[in-house]
C-alpha cells in the first residue's frame, strides 16, 4: 500500500433506504470510502449497522423495497451509480451510469465478486458443486465449458479441497460448512475479479475453521492481489486481516483509519466500545464491557450524534450536533477520520457542554456527580488496555436499554 493512485472503488455519500409501511429505513446514510488495489478494507459494526446493505449497494443488488437514493459509486472510472440534477431540479440518473444489463454483465462476478455469510444456504442444493462453479466461471470468463470445468477443479484444489475432481461431482450437502465456504471462495476467485466483497464469511463457522479460512484468504489475497471489502462485526478478524477499517454505526461510518492506527489510537467512543466488548485472552469474561443498550432502529435515528444515547462520553452538545466524518489525525500519510465532536477539529462545543444526565464522566462530571448518585452501581472501570490510555467511569448497568 505504498503509492496512492486512483482508488479501485470510490463510494461517496452513498444512501440506501428501504421504503416500508412503518416508514423510511435509512439503512445506509451517506457513507464514503475507497478501496485501493490489493488492499483489504474492513467494514465493521453491530448487526443492523447497514454493512451488508452497503456492500450489496455496490453491486446495485438491493432487494425491494430498498433503493439507492443518493451518492456516487465509481469503479475503475465507471459509474455504477451516480445522480445529477435534471433540468427540472430533480435528481436523475446520470448519463454515464451503467445500465442494469451492463452492471450484470460487466461488474457482477467478473469485476466484483461476493462471498456470502451463510455457506450452508448459499449453494443451490440440487446442483453439484462443480456445475455451479463452472456456470459462474463460464458466465464471467471467456472459457469453453471444458476449460471452465478444468479451471473449477484447479480452483477447488487451490482453496484446499482434497480430491477436487471427485468433489466436483458432489452436492453441497456432502460438504461441511468450512468446505462449502472454501467452495464459495473458489467461486469468487475463479471469476478473476479485482474486488471481492466478503460479507461476514466466517460468522457461521466455528472458530478453528474460521482461522483456517482467514489464513486461506490471506494467502490467496497475497497471491492474486485481489482487493477485498471484508464485512464483519468481529474486531479480532479485523485486526488479523484488514489493512484499513471503516467502522459503521446506524448507517454511517463513524471512524475510518488504517488498522493499527484504529486499534492503538482509537478516536471514536463507539469503536472503543466495540474493542472493549471483544473477548481477549488477557481479560476475564467479567471484565468484558458490552455496549449498553441496543442499536436504535434506522427508521428514526436519534438526533445529533446517533451514538449519543449509548455513548459513555456523551454531553449535551452531542444531542444537538450531528458530526460528519472529519480527519482528526494522520497515520503513515493516510487520514484517520472520526465523527465525534470530542476532537478539536469540531471546535470547542463539546468542551463547553455539560455531560448528559446519568452518565458519570471522568473529569468534568466528578464534581457534579453527587446529585446523581442514586444511579447506583457507578463503578470504576479498569484500564481499557487497548493502548488508547483512556480511563473512565461508566455506570454499572449493562445491556439495559436506556434510550431516551
Amino acid at each position, binding site marked *: 500500500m505504498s503509492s496512492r493512485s486512483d482508488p479501485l472503488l470510490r463510494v461517496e455519500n452513498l444512501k440506501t433506504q428501504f421504503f416500508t409501511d412503518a416508514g423510511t429505513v435509512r439503512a445506509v446514510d451517506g457513507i464514503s470510502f475507497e478501496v485501493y488495489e490489493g488492499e483489504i478494507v474492513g467494514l465493521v459494526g453491530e448487526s443492523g449497522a447497514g454493512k451488508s446493505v452497503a456492500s450489496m449497494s455496490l*453491486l446495485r*443488488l438491493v432487494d425491494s423495497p430498498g433503493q439507492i437514493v443518493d451518492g456516487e459509486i465509481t469503479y475503475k472510472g465507471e459509474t455504477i451509480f451516480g445522480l445529477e440534477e435534471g433540468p427540472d431540479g430533480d435528481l436523475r440518473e446520470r448519463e454515464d451510469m451503467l445500465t442494469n444489463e451492463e452492471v*450484470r*454483465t460487466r*461488474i*457482477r*462476478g*467478473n469485476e466484483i*465478486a*461476493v462471498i*456470502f455469510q*451463510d455457506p450452508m*444456504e*448459499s*449453494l*443451490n*442444493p*440440487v*446442483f*453439484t458443486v462443480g456445475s455451479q462453479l463452472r*456456470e*459462474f466461471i463460464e*458466465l*464471467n470468463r471467456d472459457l469453453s465449458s471444458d476449460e471452465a470445468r478444468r479451471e473449477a477443479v484447479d480452483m477447488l484444489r487451490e482453496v484446499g479441497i482434497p480430491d477436487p475432481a471427485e468433489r466436483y461431482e458432489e*452436492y453441497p*450437502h456432502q460438504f461441511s460448512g468450512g468446505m462449502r465456504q472454501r467452495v*464459495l471462495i473458489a*467461486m469468487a476467485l475463479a*471469476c478473476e475479479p479485482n474486488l471481492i466483497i466478503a460479507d461476514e464469511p466466517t460468522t457461521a463457522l466455528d472458530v478453528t475453521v474460521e482461522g483456517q479460512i482467514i489464513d486461506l484468504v490471506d494467502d490467496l489475497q497475497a497471491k492474486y492481489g485481489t482487493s477485498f471489502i471484508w464485512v464483519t462485526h468481529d474486531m479480532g478478524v479485523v485486526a488479523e486481516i484488514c489493512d484499513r477499517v471503516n467502522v459503521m454505526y446506524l448507517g454511517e461510518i463513524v471512524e475510518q483509519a488504517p488498522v493499527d492506527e484504529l486499534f492503538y489510537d482509537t478516536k471514536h467512543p463507539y469503536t472503543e466500545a466495540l474493542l472493549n466488548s471483544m473477548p481477549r485472552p488477557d481479560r476475564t469474561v467479567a471484565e468484558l464491557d458490552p455496549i449498553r443498550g441496543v442499536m436504535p432502529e434506522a427508521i428514526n435515528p436519534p438526533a445529533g450524534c446517533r451514538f449519543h444515547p449509548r455513548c459513555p462520553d456523551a454531553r449535551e452538545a452531542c444531542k444537538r450536533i450531528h458530526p460528519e466524518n472529519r480527519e482528526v489525525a494522520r497515520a503513515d500519510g493516510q487520514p484517520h477520520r472520526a465523527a465525534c465532536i470530542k476532537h478539536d477539529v469540531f471546535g470547542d462545543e463539546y468542551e463547553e457542554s455539560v455531560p448528559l444526565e446519568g452518565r458519570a464522566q471522568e473529569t468534568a462530571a466528578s464534581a457534579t456527580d453527587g446529585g446523581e448518585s442514586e444511579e447506583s452501581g457507578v463503578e470504576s472501570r479498569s484500564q481499557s488496555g487497548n493502548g488508547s490510555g483512556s480511563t473512565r467511569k461508566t455506570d454499572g448497568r449493562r445491556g439495559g436499554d436506556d434510550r431516551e
Partner: protein
Amino acid sequence: MGLLRYTAGRVVQAIPVLIGITVITFILANLAPGDPVRLMLQGQEVNQEVIARIERQYGLHRPLHERYLTYMGNVLQGDLGHSIHRDRPVTALLAQRAGPTLMLVLSAYAFALATAIPLGIIAATRRNEPTDHVSRIVALIGVSTPSFWIGIVLILIFAIQLGWLPSSGLVYPWRSPDQYGYSGYPELAYQTIRHLLLPMIALGTLQMATLMRVERTQMIESLQGEYVKLARAYGVPERTILRKHAFQVAQLPIITIIGLNLSTALGGAVLTEYVFNINGIGRLFLEAIQSLDYQLIMGITIVIGTMFVVGVIITDISYAYIDPRVTYGEHD
C-alpha cells in the same frame, strides 16, 4: 445401486399397507346391511335350501376370517374373485375398465401440471399484483368446487348451450378408427381429444388449483433463497435464475403433492365418470356398491389401493432421484 435398494425397501414397506386396505374393506363390505344372495334373487320367493346352496357355491357360509384368507390366497394368484351379479371374473371386468380411468386421471394430471406450473410461477413473480390476486381467487374456487359440479356446469355450457363438445362417453385411441366409423387415425385422435376435454378439465381443476398454490409458495420461497442471491451477484440473468436456479428447487414439493393427491384424483374420477357417462373403474365401483357385489367391491378397492400405493412409491423414488439430499436410509 442405493436407489435400487431404496426402491425395494419402499415396496416391502407397502405390503402392510395393502394388507390393511384389504382387511378393512373386507370387514366393511361384510358389515354393510343387505344380503347379496337375496339381492341377487331380486325378491323372488325361493326356499332356504336354494339360498344355502348359493351361499355354499360362493363360500358365503364360512366364517369371515376363513373367507378372507381364502380370498387373499386367490388374490396372490391373480384371481380377484367372481362377480356374482355379472357372472364374470372381476379381473376381466377391471381389465376392460382400467383404460378409460387411467386415460382420464393421467390427462387430468397433465392438464393440471401444464396450467398450474406456469400460472404459479407468474403469480410468484408478480406477488401481490392483480395477476396474483386473480390467481388466488381462481385457486380458491378450484379447491372448493367439487369435480362433479364443475362437470355438470361444463356440460351445460359447452355441450348443451354452445354445442361445441360432446357431453358423454370417451373415444379410445387404442381402438381402430373403423370401430367408430371414423375416416382414419387423424379423426380418431381429434375425436379422442374432443371427448376427453371436458372430463379432463372437470377432474383436473382441483389438482390445478392445489398445485398452483404450492408452486407459487415454493417459487416465492426459492426466489428468496441465498443461492438466488448468489446467482444474482455473479451476474446470472434473471431469466436463468427463474427457470433453472429457483425453479429446480421449487419443484420438489410439487412431486410430493402429485403423489398424495392421487387419492383425491381417483376419488374424483368416480364422480367424473358418472357425470360424463364414462365406462371406467369409477362407474363400475358405484354400480358394484349399489348391487352389493362384494367380490367386485373388494377387487376394485384392492386395485385402486394398489394404484395409490404404487403412485406414492413412484413419488418417493422420483423425489430421491431428483433431490440429491434424500439419502436412501443407509447413512445419516
